[in-house]
């Protein structure tokens, strides 16, 4: 049984991000047009396409910094069209974000930059220390924790930003052109770090306009052009799944969960049998 068969519609609890016929217009121009895809737990997804194709727009929709003008975005069970604004902070605590230009706080050192993300959501002091140490060790910058951002190289600054992005143990890490400002060797290190984070179970959405890099990853690639999703490797596996995507949309959640569990046990049994 193909792994994708374990999953059903976008309300499947394993669906981390679901886009359902999403359109996003800024004024008159459509930045995204009829975009549908689904990202499941622990996946590493690359979004690629030329400048202005709508990559950043997709990431903004995931953090509910923007809302679709048509269609629905579902992130960890929260539905864009039925979302109350007060629950957006709760959603964002499950999402880490890394930018092309790092966006570190220049007046705070490495440690404080990472701790900041924990501080402002109210994590107790002792826990902050433990978590910051863990992630700074992971990105290899614990030794430089007392340095100011401007004394670090671009690659190091991006590692700090990644540490900040994952310190709250998000379920999803969004990286918007994280390698855009880095030379190829350093870019590869950053990509490897993101793979490592993904191996730890965090779902990673990686956006870049560099189509060739992404090809070499051997991961799922969504290709955008002029706001349209022109190819999705998983979609090309078969149209069957595409129709499932829309079918599952309005089914009761309990039913979907029950089915997902049933499929899971069936799969486990099958594995045991082998």
């Amino acid at each position: 049984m193909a792994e994708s068969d374990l999953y059903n519609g976008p309300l499947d609890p394993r669906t981390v991000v679901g886009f359902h016929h999403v359109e996003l217009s800024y004024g008159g121009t459509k930045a995204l047009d009829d975009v549908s895809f689904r990202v499941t737990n622990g996946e590493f997804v690359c979004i690629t396409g030329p400048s202005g194709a709508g990559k950043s727009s997709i990431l903004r929709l995931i953090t509910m910094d923007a809302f679709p003008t048509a269609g629905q975005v579902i992130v960890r069970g929260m539905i864009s069209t039925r979302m109350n604004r007060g629950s957006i902070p709760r959603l964002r605590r499950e999402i880490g974000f890394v930018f092309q230009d790092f966006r570190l706080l220049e007046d705070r050192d490495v440690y404080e930059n990472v701790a900041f993300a924990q501080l402002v959501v109210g994590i107790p002091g002792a826990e902050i220390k433990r978590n910051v140490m863990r992630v700074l060790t992971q990105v290899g910058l614990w030794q430089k924790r007392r340095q100011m951002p401007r004394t670090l190289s671009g690659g190091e600054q991006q590692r700090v930003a990644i540490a900040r992005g994952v310190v709250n143990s998000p379920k999803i890490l969004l990286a918007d052109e994280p390698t855009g400002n880095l030379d190829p060797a350093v870019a590869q290190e950053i990509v490897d770090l993101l793979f490592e984070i993904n191996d730890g179970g965090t779902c990673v959405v990686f956006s870049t306009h560099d189509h060739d890099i992404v090809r070499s990853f051997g991961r799922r690639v969504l290709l955008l052009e002029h706001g349209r999703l022109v190819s999705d490797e998983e979609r090309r596996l078969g149209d069957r799944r595409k129709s499932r995507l829309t079918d599952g949309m309005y089914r009761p959640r309990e039913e979907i969960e029950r089915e997902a569990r049933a499929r899971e046990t069936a799969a486990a049994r099958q594995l045991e049998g082998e």
Partner: protein
Amino acid sequence: MFKPTQTAYILKESLAGFHRRKLTTGVTILIMGSALLVLSLFSIVTINIGALLDHARTGIDVRVFLDDAMDDVAASELHRHLSALPGVRQVAYVSKEQALVEFRRELGEETELLDAMEENPLPASFHVVLTEKAVDADRQREIADDMRRWPGVADVAFSEEWARLLDHWRSVFTTATLIIGLVVFIAAVFVISNTVKLTVAASARAVEIMKQVGATNAFIRTPFLVEGLLEGLCGGLFAMAVLIAAHAVLRPSIAGLIFFTPAQIAGFVVFCLGLGLLGSWAALHKYLRL
């Protein structure tokens, strides 16, 4: 509402503006403090003028003119009645003859007209002095109306003009204080919102990161609100400190100077806190997009 680490962060960040922009913050507090000082000076002057006017009014008297037909029994009964009226301090009887003597004295040289008269044309009267409590014009009118209803009273004359004049000056000063209060209010809110605006601008990236990692809007706003609150407090305390010092110096030389009561000082400080809060709220409303 906020966790301990968050509260510590808020307190630290509220003082960030004071740290990073000592000059701007200092000037803000100074401008606001001076404006508040002007306002409190005017309030003090108004309070004291009010007290002076009240005091001046105690000299106001009422004349109750009597019918010539009134006999002594009726007159002494009226005397008792007038003395018992609330708001009356003192009642003195002025006979027809005394009235004529007084009138002659007032006229001075030109007494031929009076000499030509066969009969004394002046009525007898009661000279009524009001207490301080009865100083406002409305209360005086009540007293006069009460007196007029009494049989044998021909007319009541009281210094309505004078009372009106005093009321006029009081309202001029009260209005002036209110207008200055309004100007100070707007100026204070403006200067505070201006400095908080700078802090908002300087914190743009931190705000962006906070939003991104899921800090609540209330949490993001609070340090800015507290900054405005603190600036308002400092401005108010500055004005009060100067005023209290000035009062200590001047008190010996100005007898009867009335100063703010402790409750009024507390109210003034609360007012300054409100100004600070309003100033930062205005800045956030305009410059912080969440």
